[in-house]
């Protein structure tokens, strides 16, 4: 019999989640020295407890955080046209943001141009619409690109890397000065959230080529950002999130080494973008465990010698799934708790999901509240003044060990199922994501996961007005942008388009050669991301438009 969703007496619900962490780790009433093992999960002797900034970096990447710079404060942004998003960036920088993180609308995230027939009501209303080199130029017009961290939640990263590289050359500065990141998720992106409709080998090749290209051309840029946020916010727990992340990192590292690259040539630029849910201590433990797993893996398994290859940069985005439509002001409190968790864990950059996240892409005002939350955690609460303030806590150390053990156990389990390609193509991950989604829906229904205002302490919807009207304001799609892109396609140099379309197709069909350079050339010849993606698909024997609606330019 289905359990009643709503808790008239919330004490019953709260009781259920008291017994274990969000990942299901049983909790004791309190912890003592006996809970902090002197051996690792695998029974091997642990190295003496290292300080922050020392291998295996459990306690942090750096020995001495500086309060003002302890983490880069940024907010996910992007809406409408690239010009509109450029204004949004300026507003954020004006309010104190030191990095940018741009997200595309649904067509952009799927490598579909705005004039794709299925995109017509989705242009610019869930992120920025980007498909050409000119769009990247408009996006970054007038901004001091070498002084900002430019994060791109725009998969596959090859396009942003190619575009940034060319913009640097056009503006007359060395691409080597560029800092920022592009997200990578070749094994999972077809199975969660936005699909790019490319086969595994092509997705993996785009990822590997991006890393190899950036290692040589943009060495300060994190082309290898494993985005475990993106794959986990459908409902995976912290253990599953990091296990999948490590499985993908390990496969990419192995393959790059197989290509003949020195591990120390790319490993210092591996970063992980993690999710931060509401279980404060588990999230701290997860991040500490992640640093330790990464360090040991890079040094002991992959033979990295450069200490920078052992300490992983971690950036974080707070969970959108943890936010509710009910009582949206509660989301501000959630953001503060999550921001504190990240400050206590010690990360390199933070984005706090905005209070209107459950309704829409962030508004001007909600962006400011999220940035101010970070500033308050940092400068008023002073949470970043000391590295690893929770180090030595019986509970946090014990939880860190247990997270490490469980993450590694799941990595071993997944790797025993076959190659990553086999496991991905078998639908194992899709099944995991689907089960996590239904598991999470049930947890909300039966109250084992509490969301205040949603399944505990509810108020009637007609009384729930605080920040409601603000949150409910909607963005219209940019229909004009569709016309603009159609005109652009009609007016460009047809011969150059045909030539580069053929080149991309050939490059896709070839088994060697880096794809980023031809993609950059094609962008300069006014091909769009949708067209280049289609040409790559044709190159590997797939159809141009998997949705069967768009025609190739030639």
């Amino acid at each position, binding site marked *: 019999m289905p359990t009643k969703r709503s808790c008239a007496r919330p004490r019953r619900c709260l009781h259920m989640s008291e017994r274990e962490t969000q990942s299901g780790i049983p909790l004791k009433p309190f912890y003592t020295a006996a809970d902090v093992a002197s051996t690792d999960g695998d029974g091997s002797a642990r190295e003496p407890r290292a300080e922050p900034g020392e291998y295996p970096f459990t306690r942090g990447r750096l020995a001495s955080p500086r309060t003002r710079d302890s983490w880069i404060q940024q907010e996910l942004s992007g809406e409408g046209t690239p010009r509109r998003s450029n204004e949004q960036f300026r507003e954020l920088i004006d309010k104190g943001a030191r990095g940018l993180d741009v997200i595309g609308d649904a067509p952009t995230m799927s490598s579909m141009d705005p004039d794709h027939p299925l995109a017509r009501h989705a242009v610019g209303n869930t992120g920025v619409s980007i498909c050409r080199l000119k769009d990247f130029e408009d996006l970054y017009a007038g901004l001091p690109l070498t002084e900002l961290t430019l994060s791109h939640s725009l998969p596959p990263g090859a396009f942003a890397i190619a575009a940034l590289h060319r913009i640097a050359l056009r503006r007359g500065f060395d691409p080597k000065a560029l800092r920022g990141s592009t997200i990578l998720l070749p094994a999972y992106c077809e199975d969660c*959230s936005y699909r790019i409709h490319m086969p595994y080998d092509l997705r993996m090749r785009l990822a590997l080529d991006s890393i190899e290209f950036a290692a040589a051309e943009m060495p300060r840029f994190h082309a290898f950002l494993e985005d475990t946020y993106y794959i986990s916010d459908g409902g995976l727990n912290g253990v599953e999130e990091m296990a999948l992340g490590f499985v993908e990192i390990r496969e990419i590292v192995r393959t790059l080494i197989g290509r003949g690259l020195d591990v120390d040539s790319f490993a210092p630029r591996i970063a992980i973008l993690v999710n931060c849910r509401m279980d404060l201590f588990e999230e701290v433990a997860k991040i500490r465990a992640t640093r330790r797993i990464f360090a040991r893996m890079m040094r002991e398994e992959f033979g990295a010698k450069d200490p920078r290859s052992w300490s992983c940069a971690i950036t974080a985005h707070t969970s959108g799934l943890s936010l509710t439509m009910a009582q949206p002001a509660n989301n501000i409190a959630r953001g503060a708790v999550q921001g504190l968790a990240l400050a206590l864990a010690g990360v390199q950059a933070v984005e706090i999901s905005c209070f209107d996240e459950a*309704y829409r892409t962030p508004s001007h005002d909600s962006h400011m509240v999220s940035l101010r939350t970070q500033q308050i955690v940092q400068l008023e609460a002073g949470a970043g003044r000391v590295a690893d303030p929770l180090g030595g806590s019986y509970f946090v150390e014990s939880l860190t060990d247990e997270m490490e053990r469980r993450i590694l156990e799941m990595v071993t389990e997944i790797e025993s199922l076959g190659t990553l390609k086999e496991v991905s193509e078998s639908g194992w991950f899709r099944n995991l994501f689907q089960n996590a*989604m239904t598991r999470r829906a049930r947890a909300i229904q039966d109250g084992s996961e509490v969301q205040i205002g949603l399944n505990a302490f509810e108020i009637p919807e007609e009384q729930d007005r605080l920040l409601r009207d603000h949150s409910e304001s909607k963005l219209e799609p940019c229909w004009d942008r569709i016309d603009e892109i159609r005109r652009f396609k009609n007016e460009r140099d047809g011969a150059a388009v045909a030539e580069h379309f053929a080149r991309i197709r050939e490059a896709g069909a070839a088994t060697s050669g880096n794809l980023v350079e031809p993609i950059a050339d094609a962008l300069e010849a006014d091909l769009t991301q949708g067209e280049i993606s289609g040409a790559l698909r044709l190159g590997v024997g797939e159809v141009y438009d998997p949705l069967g609606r768009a025609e190739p330019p030639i």
Partner: protein
Amino acid sequence: MAAERPIRILLAILGMDQHEAGAFAVARLLRDAGMEVIYLGRFGTPETVVDAALEEGADIIGLSCHSWEYRYYLDELFALLKRRNLDVPVVVGGSILSQDDRNEIQRKGVAAGFGPDADPDEIVRRIRTLAKARGAA
């Protein structure tokens, strides 16, 4: 009296909206309640939805939404249903549907709207009532 047949509900996501969490959860809920769920998946259009509803003999069309695209597709969907003489109730559920949104789509002709706080029992009950009017159980 004819034997009762199970309720057939067609579940779809329109346009570029690609978040499936809600659709999976609702599909599981309705299957557990004994209904036949035909999940059309992502990248639907009013045409593909109406075609499938006809082909599958659906009692109910269910749209899952996590973006605002439904606001523009609904008018097209109702116009097409009318043109094809298909009298199937449309229900819409989604993580982003507020009470005001639900009121708005019900004015457009949607039989029921469910937000993220919808009671699962209520979802099942409403869909059963709508389907019963069409002879399903």
